[in-house]
């Protein structure tokens, strides 16, 4: 797909949503905190809001062009939209909800055949029910199916998992992945959930305060946040101000707290940086480190533990607050406890310097 958004300007209550974007991947996540303007962006693409200025083009077809005073009506855009509250029609049974937007005859894509969609999303047993009799996860699937049955060219998903609790989330994710594979339909998925972005998206657009902060491949954005705000939001565990003392052979020596670290030099003149280290990149070791390729060896005192599923988040005082994510067995084997001294190993490329 190709979705072009140019010169977007939409005044909202506290800021103006502005964007210049080109999305080419199959699944793009619009990722950002609540109130960043994500839903408004989807509304704009669906034609539900009138922007101050905008040029929106989907697969070569212009949908909105304020310069030409041109706008395709929402019901002619062929864009499926599953809003956060799902908006199932309460006065219609599941079947009528599903059939509401169904195209018949020539306009229908064989891909979005009723039986096929029903099968992929496992809706068969729900069809005869009323909408109010459905559970949260069932409603979610019905809303997805209803949007798909309208044979859309693009599917907009607004926080597809926000209304579900954790076990249900894990059940819905495979359905979304299935839609992605079975129907080959481009999706634009708004989320503030890192897990959703990581599992579903090929490409991420980070939206904060109405501005696009960064666009790129998922791994790229999560490991190399463009600036401090993005880093904070994408959840890099260690995030400390530092100062580059010297740069040589592409390596920078950085002062953080009362220690120095070696990292890859950023492409910037700025000496003041934020030092970003992901918890899973930090190796903990009990004995003092012997010779290895690892550039940074820090001795630290364990301040706290916090279990996170199969992992434990360990906070160290290594001259600055440093977070490490280790497995529970590793934690037990190393006999890690509060107050114990350990050595933290961090490879130079795992330290990401963001100019500030």
């Amino acid at each position, binding site marked *: 797909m190709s979705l072009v958004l140019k010169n977007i300007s939409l005044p909202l209550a506290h800021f103006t949503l502005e964007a210049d974007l080109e999305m080419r991947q199959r699944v793009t996540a619009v990722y950002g905190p609540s109130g960043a303007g994500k839903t408004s962006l989807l509304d704009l693409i669906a034609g*539900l809001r009138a922007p101050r200025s905008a040029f929106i083009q989907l697969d070569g077809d212009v949908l909105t062009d304020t310069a030409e005073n041109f706008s395709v009506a929402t019901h002619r855009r062929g864009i*499926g939209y599953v809003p956060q*509250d799902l*908006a199932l029609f309460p006065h219609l049974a599941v079947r009528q909800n599903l059939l509401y937007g169904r195209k018949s005859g020539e306009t229908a894509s064989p891909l979005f055949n009723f039986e096929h969609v029903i099968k992929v999303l496992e809706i068969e047993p729900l069809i005869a029910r009323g909408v109010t009799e459905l559970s949260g996860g069932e409603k979610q699937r019905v809303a997805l199916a209803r949007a798909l049955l309208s044979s859309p060219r693009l599917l907009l998903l607004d926080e597809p998992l926000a209304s579900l609790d954790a076990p249900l989330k894990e059940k819905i994710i495979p359905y979304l992945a299935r839609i992605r594979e079975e129907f080959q339909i481009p999706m634009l998925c708004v989320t503030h959930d890192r897990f959703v972005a990581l599992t579903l998206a090929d490409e991420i657009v980070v939206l904060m305060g109405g501005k696009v902060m960064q666009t790129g491949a998922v791994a790229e954005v999560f490991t190399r946040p463009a600036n401090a705000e993005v880093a904070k939001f994408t959840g890099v565990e260690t995030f400390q101000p530092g100062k580059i003392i010297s740069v040589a052979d592409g390596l920078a020596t950085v002062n953080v707290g009362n220690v120095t670290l070696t990292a890859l030099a950023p492409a910037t003149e700025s000496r003041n940086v934020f030092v970003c280290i992901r918890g899973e990149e930090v190796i903990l070791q009990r004995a003092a480190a012997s010779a290895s390729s690892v550039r940074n060896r820090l001795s630290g005192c364990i301040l706290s533990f916090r279990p996170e599923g199969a992992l434990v988040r360990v906070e160290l005082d290594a001259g600055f607050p440093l977070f490490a994510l280790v497995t529970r067995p590793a934690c037990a084997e190393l006999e890690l406890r509060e107050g114990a001294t350990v050595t933290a190993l961090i490879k130079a490329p795992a330290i990401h310097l963001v100019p500030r």
Partner: protein
Amino acid sequence: MSAAEWQIVWFTVWVAALSTLTILPIGLALAFALARGNWPGKSIVETFITLPLVMPPVATGLILLTVLGKHGGGGWFDFRIVFTWRAVLLALSVMSLPLLVRSARTAFEEVNPRLEQIARTLGAGGWRVFFTITVPLAGRGIIGGMLLAFARALGEFGATIMVAGNIPGKTQTISLGIFENVTIGQNAQAYHLLAASVVLAFIAVWSSEFFLRRKKTA
């Protein structure tokens, strides 16, 4: 009850029902425009629609009579309105419109606009969204409003007597009939019509309450 009294009751029910159906399209259009739109002059229109509810009905009747002219359709119509059953229909319509608009407007305001928007993304145009989403979801409030308007029309007196006169067998409704019978001392006939009017009003108001109340808990 005599045949003449039955005729009055049937005529009243029939013309009141017809007036409710007559105002339905314009009433819904106005209610929807007031509920959703934000246009210049909205508060003026709002006030004008509500006027018949608070003005003396006789004054409203006088306005209608002046607009239509005493002897014809104000020059716009070939057929005579004043002092015919059509004048009764017109008076009842004008007097009951505010009640329909007010109820329907509240009902429309309670419909989540997000549902209408999503219906549009599913390929439904404006009319289809209105008739398949908005009206069904506002249905109870609309029916409640129609019954209230019908009840109001059943009892209308002042505006009717101004534009339609009080012609037995032609424009006489229950309220006009009661008035006439009491004036000429036929109290028995007046009480017959009174009983009919109480029964009809009770049924109309009770069922409108049913629809308007259930809307809230649903």
